[in-house]
């Protein structure tokens, strides 16, 4: 595949590290004779772009503009189209985030491109760009290709590729925007977005709470277990949506994908959207009152019981 284009992502001035995985995937897709071009749109892009200059990247473009401070589709789409104008690509990769999935689908619709969102990998099939996704309760992998003559837009889930190590030799250039950033019908009137403070991906031990903790008091037990183990605290979307935990601690399809040595799931039912984020943990202990909870299918140790009874016992054994 000769030309692969990556749209990297900036969140409040911080480079989203899935962008680097997209570069890893793009390099593999481009092969030895292909080229990889990376674009970073957003306010503060110039200051954050350095890590995008990875080995094998031919060009890093930044679109640093005040009008790109809060994400809305149209101006971002205009910038990507402007960057692609002189650099046609057979494949365009973005992180599978709320921005990437929105922008990727908008881009596909605008370009008449094939589109695969939430892909678990990209490659080629009979010389055409392809992407695949594991779905149907993780039992089926579906592979798609772009129709003849169409580019492919794919958004990549966490873990779809390795981030490249080291730095490359590309110059970081400002993309000339001119009239590209036009009027936008939508306007972000207010934002209520927290800063990311934890990186669960590097944690060796994670103690994770589900709705089964019942509330902030139950969560306190989980927190004590995490402290006793020197572990990070994680949780399900149910716990985050209930406001008991900050969103950067959510594990699963729309949260972090983690691979700790030890994962202790407390009061978590084990919906597939949660399990995809923790399946690769080396050892999983699950505590749940329901003997048939699906979380037990991904657990090495199955404890059927009330976490309010079991966790104090574990704390005692740990001398806490």
């Amino acid at each position, binding site marked *: 595949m000769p030309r692969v284009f990556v749209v990297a992502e900036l969140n409040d001035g911080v480079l989203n590290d899935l962008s680097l995985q997209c570069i890893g995937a793009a390099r593999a897709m481009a092969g030895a004779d292909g080229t990889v071009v990376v674009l970073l749109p957003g306010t503060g892009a110039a200051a954050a772009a350095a890590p995008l200059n990875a080995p094998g990247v031919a060009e890093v473009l930044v679109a640093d503009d005040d009008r790109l401070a809060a994400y809305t589709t149209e101006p971002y789409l205009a910038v990507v189209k402007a960057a692609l104008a002189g650099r046609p690509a057979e494949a365009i990769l973005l992180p599978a985030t709320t921005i990437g999935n929105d922008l990727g689908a908008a881009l596909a619709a605008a370009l008449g491109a094939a589109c695969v969102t939430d892909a678990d990998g990209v490659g080629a099939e009979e010389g055409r760009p392809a992407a695949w996704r594991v779905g149907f309760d993780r039992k089926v992998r579906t592979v798609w290709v772009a*129709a003849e003559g169409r580019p492919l837009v794919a958004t990549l889930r966490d873990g779809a590729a390795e981030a490249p190590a080291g730095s490359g030799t590309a110059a970081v250039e400002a993309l000339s925007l001119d009239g590209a950033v036009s009027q936008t019908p939508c306007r972000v009137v207010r934002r209520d977005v927290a800063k990311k403070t934890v990186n669960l991906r590097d944690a060796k*031990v994670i103690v994770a709470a589900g709705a089964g903790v019942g509330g902030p008091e139950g969560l306190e037990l989980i927190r004590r277990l995490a402290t006793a183990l020197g572990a990070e605290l994680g949780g399900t979307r149910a716990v985050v949506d209930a406001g008991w935990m900050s969103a950067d601690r959510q594990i699963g399809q729309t949260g972090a994908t983690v691979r700790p040595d030890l994962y202790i799931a407390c009061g978590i039912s084990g919906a*597939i959207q949660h399990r995809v984020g923790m399946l690769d943990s080396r050892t999983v202990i699950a505590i749940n009152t329901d003997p048939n909870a699906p979380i037990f299918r991904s657990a090495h140790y199955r404890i059927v019981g009330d976490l309010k009874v079991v966790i104090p016992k574990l704390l005692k054994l740990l001398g806490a």
Partner: protein
Amino acid sequence: MPHTIAVIAREVWDTRDLTGQILDEAGGLRPGALQTRFDPEDLNALELALRIKDAHGARVVAVGLGAPRQVEVLRECLYRGADAAVTATGDLAAADTAAHARRLAGAVRSLGRVDLLLVGTAVPDDDNSLLARHLAAELGWPAVSWVDAIEELAVDRVVARRAVEMGYEYVETPLPAVLAVGVALLEDDPRAPRPAKAMLKLKMKKAEIPTVPATDEPAPLTLRVRREAVPPRAIETATVDPENEAALRAMLDAALKGA
């Protein structure tokens, strides 16, 4: 004049908690291996539309694609409080999101003036999500995705709350617009989404659901090449009796080794 709100209602595979073989030898879905359900996010979209109707008055029209398979989602919409329903012709399995959007947009246009088009954001198993973005491109309307609440609704604009990774954004957009509704909406509210009402069932049982034929048959841009079985992870699960302190200790010792 009250708003007209169109809601896309899709029948999708129910992929929760699947047991047994899903694919046949040829890589097709085994008949009977899967049930379908009303797409939960589309159901959220319907609930959002019906809440607008309750609060401000609105005409709610459900828009479907193709013939029902196991669940009559459009009738379900009528039984929950939608005023009317239409179907676009076409087969969910036969085309991609862009082609679905072309047909659905045709059905939406057939309704005359529509102020809001609501649709679920993601159908992750077999489909490429963000139908909303393709619908927006077809209709030439703005769109906001991952909406989970309406903050403000005026005659000609809406402020939608959008759930993003680390919080919320409040996005204003002029009407007509597409709002893609996320999964979180109303999940904590035990009364939502509202169930079907017996009275509406009686009233709507025979309601006519007109079919809107496609004006052209767009060729898909994204081609599904194959489905492959993913081998299950062989994981050995030991059951630990929580009353057995020695067993709990052994478990902790083994699990913490090297951690």
